[in-house]
């Protein structure tokens, strides 16, 4: 993974000094809150319901054991002993003090981390496939481009005061685990017949108040043209994106309002107008970065591990975890380990300092010292030998990290919601907990199979409910919490926005409603058919009837 050189170090150090100075000026009154707000947001510091919240960037969701340990240290020293992993591969601390924030940023800089641009109307964390570099179906690792874009977008002078936030995602596999079609810019890696790499450029996807799937503006952009082309897109957005209405200020609205064709022609005209560095310039930097993402040295192992197979026979809990929580690795004898942060009845995505250290140690000892954060608020050890899986499982189990529900009904994605967030209209975590308890039975979860339940506590959709197979949106109806259910969303390559099923439900009714929906699915599904496929085949009708039929 990427390692800072002296310039990266100096950059982050100066940035923390700059923020310390800005914080002092705020506390002394030299800066007003209106002047300070964009500055602290561009360093990831929000003012929330109970305290400040700091969102730390985990670039393309990748971190080392050492970095994870530092996150644990920060949680214990300056917060209340835990952190929350988010749907954009970042981590959030909920109880931060403004006067401590500069020290926290210093602690992050020590391990090559930062909170730069995790909020504000600027380019946010570039996210990617949490299985990058390991997945069996991957064409090429997208993370060198993720790092290239991270640097390019950091304190970009032209694009730091955009009409609104800007989110970029990249993927290197045909099965899209990075939701590129619902990002402001999504980049999909392709290889042509000559074996050359090119990027499909997708613009104008997004969730929130007006969810939309993005449009492709380029099918096969050569890598060395990426920065030049993206700058053209950013400039068109910066100049022509709406600034009159916060809810119509994303690039998806611009693309929608002027039309995809007009948008593309504006971008191409801007691209043609501008001077560009030579091909050689871009390729040099890409090559330098790519060297850091050279694959680990894998052992030459047989496809099947005898000890792994035997352990499964002897240990049903392990067998179930292995069945549900492992991803297919491209190298024989290895597996991708998905650590669920969704214990039964727990808070999705939360981990204690101790748990972070357990995961760090497992990565260091068995995982090539690499961890990932997934969009489902889970942690991934991308490179683990099958021979080591039992040991890893046992350590996870001791730390309450072995929930065998990855990708199943219990693996619920939920934003912090009204329990923490000042923007929320309703709580999301209690709903997640109720559903989790209702489907606690492992056989039931296995029977239901692959299912994405996403819960957002407000229209901003940080829980990505629009792209949940089952989406739940928390609203406020006359001061009471109230939940709308959507079905059929997907963030994969055949992306779709969920459709609202009907009238909403009170908080205590939601888990029962989900049960009714899933019973309907089980009743109607064809052999081996997953929930999303059944829904797409049947449409909402049978689900509506089951939910809203009068007794």
């Amino acid at each position, binding site marked *: 993974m990427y390692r800072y050189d002296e310039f990266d170090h100096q950059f982050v150090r100066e940035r923390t000094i700059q923020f310390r100075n800005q914080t002092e000026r705020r506390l002394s009154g030299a800066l007003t809150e209106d002047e300070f707000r964009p500055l602290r947001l561009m360093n990831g510091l929000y003012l929330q*319901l*109970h305290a400040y919240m700091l969102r730390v960037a985990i670039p393309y969701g990748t971190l080392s054991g050492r970095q994870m340990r530092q996150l644990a240290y920060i949680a214990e020293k300056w917060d209340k002993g835990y952190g929350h992993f988010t749907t954009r591969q970042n981590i959030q601390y909920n109880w931060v003090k*403004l006067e401590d924030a500069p020290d926290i940023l210093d602690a992050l800089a020590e391990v090559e981390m930062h909170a730069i641009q995790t909020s504000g109307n600027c380019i946010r964390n570039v996210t990617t496939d949490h299985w990058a570099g390991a997945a069996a179906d991957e064409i090429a690792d997208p993370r060198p481009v993720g790092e290239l874009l991270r640097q390019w977008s950091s304190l970009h002078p032209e694009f730091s005061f955009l009409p609104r936030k800007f989110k970029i995602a990249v993927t290197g596999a045909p099965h899209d685990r990075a939701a590129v079609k619902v990002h402001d810019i999504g980049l999909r890696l392709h290889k042509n017949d000559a074996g050359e790499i090119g990027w499909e450029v997708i613009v104008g996807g997004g969730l929130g108040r007006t969810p939309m799937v993005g449009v492709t503006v380029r099918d096969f952009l050569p890598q060395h043209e990426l920065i030049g082309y993206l700058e053209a897109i950013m400039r068109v957005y910066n100049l022509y994106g709406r600034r009159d209405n916060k809810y119509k200020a994303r690039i998806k609205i611009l693309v929608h309002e002027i039309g995809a064709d007009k948008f593309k022609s504006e971008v191409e005209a801007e691209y043609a107008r501008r001077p560009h560095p030579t091909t050689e310039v871009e390729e040099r930097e890409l090559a330098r970065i790519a060297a850091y993402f050279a694959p680990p040295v894998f052992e030459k192992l047989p496809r099947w591990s005898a000890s792994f197979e035997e352990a499964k026979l002897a240990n049903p809990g392990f067998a179930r975890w292995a069945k549900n929580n492992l991803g297919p690795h491209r190298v024989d004898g290895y597996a991708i380990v998905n650590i669920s942060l969704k214990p039964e009845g727990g808070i999705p995505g939360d981990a204690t300092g101790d748990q972070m250290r357990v995961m760090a140690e497992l990565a260091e000892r068995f995982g090539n010292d690499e961890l990932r954060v997934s969009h489902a608020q889970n942690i991934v050890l991308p490179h683990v030998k099958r021979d080591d899986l039992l040991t890893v499982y046992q350590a996870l189990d001791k730390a309450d990290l072995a929930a065998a529900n990855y990708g199943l009904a219990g693996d619920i994605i939920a934003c912090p919601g009204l329990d923490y967030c*000042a923007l929320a209209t309703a*709580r999301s975590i209690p709903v997640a907990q109720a559903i989790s308890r209702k489907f606690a039975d492992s056989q039931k979860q296995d029977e239901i199979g692959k299912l994405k339940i996403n819960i957002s506590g407000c229209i901003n959709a940080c829980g990505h409910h629009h792209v949940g197979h089952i989406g739940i949106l928390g609203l406020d109806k006359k001061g009471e919490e109230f939940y709308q259910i959507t079905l059929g969303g997907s963030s994969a390559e055949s992306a779709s926005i969920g459709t609202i099923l009907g009238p909403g439900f009170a908080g205590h009714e939601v888990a029962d409603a989900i049960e009714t929906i899933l019973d309907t699915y089980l009743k109607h599904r064809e052999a081996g058919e997953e929930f999303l496929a059944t829904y797409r085949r049947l449409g909402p009708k049978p689900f509506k009837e089951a939910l809203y039929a009068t007794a």
Partner: protein
Amino acid sequence: MTTTEKGQLVTANRLRDGIAVFLTRGGDWSEVIDEAVLALEPQAAAALEARARDDEKKTIVTGAYLVDAERLEGRVRAAHIRERMRALGPTVRLDLGKQSEGKGAGFAAPEGE
């Protein structure tokens, strides 16, 4: 016989540490919602808001706003669950926030809320 007073209070976040606080009769900011001063008339509410704006300028608090609330027998309850949570802490972590520090106040949250 006790009566419920209905009115408005002011809540804000303390600038230094972000903790949600409530404006008291004495003009300082308390973490305990029962100590909040309740304005029973619109004019009084406007006066509270003005005091809050002053304190914002003095870098004591930030993000102050008025909230509907009621007081009964010395306990204060905010009308909306958001502000009840500001007074107590997250409903999903009863071991965190004011509720765990002996500063949680107001009406006890009904079961299931």
